[in-house]
């Protein structure tokens, strides 16, 4: 490397030996990052296509399934991520203006935004796992039925305690005892309904009415779907975890990157002449934000 340094005395210290100028290095970095972000979008693109195909083939899966999600948490998370994107963009600007302290503060706020997002995601995920509506192996309708009955009972109890009059008693859960996990999993969704006879239906399952249309009203807290509806929403749960899981991994990677540039910033590595790393991490963080902005309505705000 010493030989290379000797050859390029005229170079700026921030410019790698194979670039002719700082401008060329920055342009290369930006082009590389944008191309990489395109590959990220295509990677999520696979999941979006998967979502579209399944939603088209099995609309009821999505309509029941989304009732499991708490729109409230999703909405808060959207705001958290948008706010962190804002602080990130601001941080890039302050880095550009040589304001090192302001950059550190803004990057810390961004990092906290990412952390907040992951905490809320943890709350949501752990709820799903404990209620028996986790992905794949963790999908357990019997556990969900217990949770559902308890929820309905608590709900009724709350009403009683407040002395409110409720015209009808809490709807009892459809009896699902004896539904083995295999039966709950296997034939719940009938994919090629033109091939098999949909009227026959899977054995042991309750025939369901389609969910009632909700109009333009966005319910912040949904009514819980019945266990029978949950049986049919297994594929939604899997797709939900696949999409938000991959997104969550990206948030973690982004937090790692922000932590890295934050520590570099505190050590004074950046200046108005050299802030490319901040800029590129910012681009990545905005992509992570953008993907969530698509995930939130697709998963949480489904309407019939």
């Amino acid at each position, binding site marked *: 490397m010493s030989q290379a340094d000797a050859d390029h005395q005229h170079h700026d210290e921030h410019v790698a030996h194979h670039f002719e100028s700082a401008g060329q290095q920055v342009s290369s970095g930006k082009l590389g990052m944008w191309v990489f972000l395109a590959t990220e979008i295509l990677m999520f693109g696979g999941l979006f296509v998967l979502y579209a195909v399944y939603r088209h083939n099995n609309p009821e899966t999505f309509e029941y399934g989304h009732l499991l999600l708490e729109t409230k948490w999703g909405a808060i998370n959207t705001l958290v991520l948008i706010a962190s994107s804002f602080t990130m963009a601001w941080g890039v600007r302050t880095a550009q203006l040589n304001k090192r302290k302001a950059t550190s503060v803004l990057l810390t706020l961004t990092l906290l935004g990412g952390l907040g997002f992951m905490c809320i995601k943890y709350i949501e995920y752990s709820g799903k796992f404990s209620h028996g509506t986790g*992905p794949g192996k963790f999908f357990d309708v019997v556990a969900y039925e217990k949770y559902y009955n308890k929820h309905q009972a608590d709900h009724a109890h709350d009403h009683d305690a407040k002395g409110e009059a409720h015209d009808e008693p809490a709807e009892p859960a459809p009896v699902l005892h004896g539904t083995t996990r295999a039966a709950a999993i296997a034939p719940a969704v009938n*994919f090629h309904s033109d091939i098999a006879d949909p009227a026959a239906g899977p054995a042991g399952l309750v025939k369901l009415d389609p969910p009632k249309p909700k109009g333009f009203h966005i319910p912040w807290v949904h009514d819980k779907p019945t266990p029978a509806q949950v049986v049919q929403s297994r594929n939604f749960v899997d797709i939900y975890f696949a999409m938000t899981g991959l997104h969550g991994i990206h948030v973690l990677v982004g937090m790692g990157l922000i932590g890295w540039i934050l520590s570099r910033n505190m050590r004074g590595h950046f200046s108005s002449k050299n802030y490319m790393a901040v800029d590129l991490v910012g681009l990545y963080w905005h992509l992570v934000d953008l993907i969530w902005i698509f995930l939130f309505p697709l998963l949480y705000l489904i309407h019939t």
Partner: protein
Amino acid sequence: MTTTPTQPTAPTPTPRAPQPLPAEENAPINYLNETRGIWSWMTTLDHKRIGVMYLVGVIVSFFLGGVMAILLRTELFSAGPGVAKLIGDALGHDKWQDTYNQMFTLHGALMVFLFIIPGIPAAFGNFVLPIMLGAKDVAFPRLNLFSFYLWCGGAVFFIAAIALGGLDTGWTFYTPYSTDPASSTFGGVIPAVFGAFLLGFSSILTGVNFIASIHMLRPKVMGWFKMPLMLWALYSTAIIQILATPVLGITLLLLIAERAGDIGVFDPSKGGDPILYQHFFWFYSHPAVYIMILPAMGVVSEVISAMSRKHIFGYSFIAMSSLAIALLGFLVWGHHMFTSGQSDTLNAIFSFITFFIAVPSAIKVFNWLATMYKGAILLKSPMFYAMSFIWVFSIGGLTGLPLAAISTDIHLHDTYFVVAHFHYVMVGGTVFAFLAALHYWWPKMFGKHYDEKPSLVAWFFIFMGFNVTFFVQFIMGAHGMPRRYADWSVEAWKASQIGKGLDTSFIESKVQLFEVCHKISTIGSYGMLIGFLILSYVLVRSLMAGKPASRNPWGANTLEWHCSSPPPHENFATQPQPNDPYNYSGWTYEPTLEGYKACEPKEPEH
């Protein structure tokens, strides 16, 4: 063109061609010996060393895949259990047919993921791309090293897959074979799929690097249409790598989640859609066929022009046809699924576009032939391999047409006709171009000559062996020999689904034909083996005791021939001035160098 001003950053105006003094032909310090020790290689950021490490890696993978191929052909030499049973007994498999399935799966997966896809772009592309641009390195040298280590990680996972019991899903990992632990009981599925995921990411990062390098490091005097065609080919390849590979990545992750965690996405018993998997898989894997062939076409464009001592014919047509192939390649994946039950409308559309993609490939072939026409052809090893490429690629391409037509495809689907077709395109095409590149750039990479005569003997065995092995497979495929069958005896036919209700005498007459074809095919594969053994001997001898090579043994004019052999760490002592890469008037043959030197009196350029 010579009057164009020099780069503003270059300290002094430099001559277009290097100094012709023989004493300077080989700089004592080059990229191979500037630092020593294994650690200096493992941590290198030099694109040339990374290219050489890739080269070693892909050759080892090619060797492993080749061993599997020879075992497969040996098993098929005679009907009934053979070498697969011996191996299966040693490994404790219940059925020797399972062993056979594992062998062809590993052959396909190793060859496709570890050898063909990275073969030319990662090994030779890394080596020549920056030099052809007159640059010191690729745009992101650290990323380049990282993608090499991702490749190594993928290779390690493949080896782990073999150690953990192998896999028998076929290289396509079709669901539900791959997702249902009951139907593929071997433990190697998850490691192999994860290995393919890592290799995909290695390929993506190489693509990002190449695109940024070509956009940003190209000297100002080298316009897009003054680049060597190899760079057009690598650029088109990189587009496919970055657009198609991520989709494979997410598909493989879902597959792992499905097998390991019971996620219901592709397995029908979990509410999944196996046809969707095929769509996703071929959305990547059909463009991947062009990741394999486009760099090969770039190599052939360079070699044909240099070895014909003639300007490439139809430069812009070759360049644009690379882009056309890259874009059209995204629209034809459904032709792998004509018999999957997708709609007839889709079949018709995919069939039509598939015919259409033959046009840019044919444009290239005609342009290469026109380049050779009336050229002063230098019949050396790289040229033999390049001409072999045109021959086998043409056969492979033309036999693709009956497979693109839906009606004939129904008959030929899943037979040896398909096997022969894609071996003609992938092995015949890519491997011959890989060997052309290996011989063409060998003196540049290692600064040594190899013996021409034994190298031609190796070429003869490989070329003849290849054609003998695979041409008969067209015949037996058209007669109905299904692919992936471990056994072709009369008894096996009678027991199989296909043989039910068929006349015994009919089956016997077919089996007689298949026997002849299989025996010829296996003998041909041994011929290839002999050829590759001679080839390894030639190249190893060249490394040990080869004569030093001069700067430009072939008289080519792309920039890598303007620096010394092997190139120094930063490629050029002085910044080169790129000119028309296919104008050979600046070089004359110098017998003492066994190569070309720059002309003293510069001829006026056209």
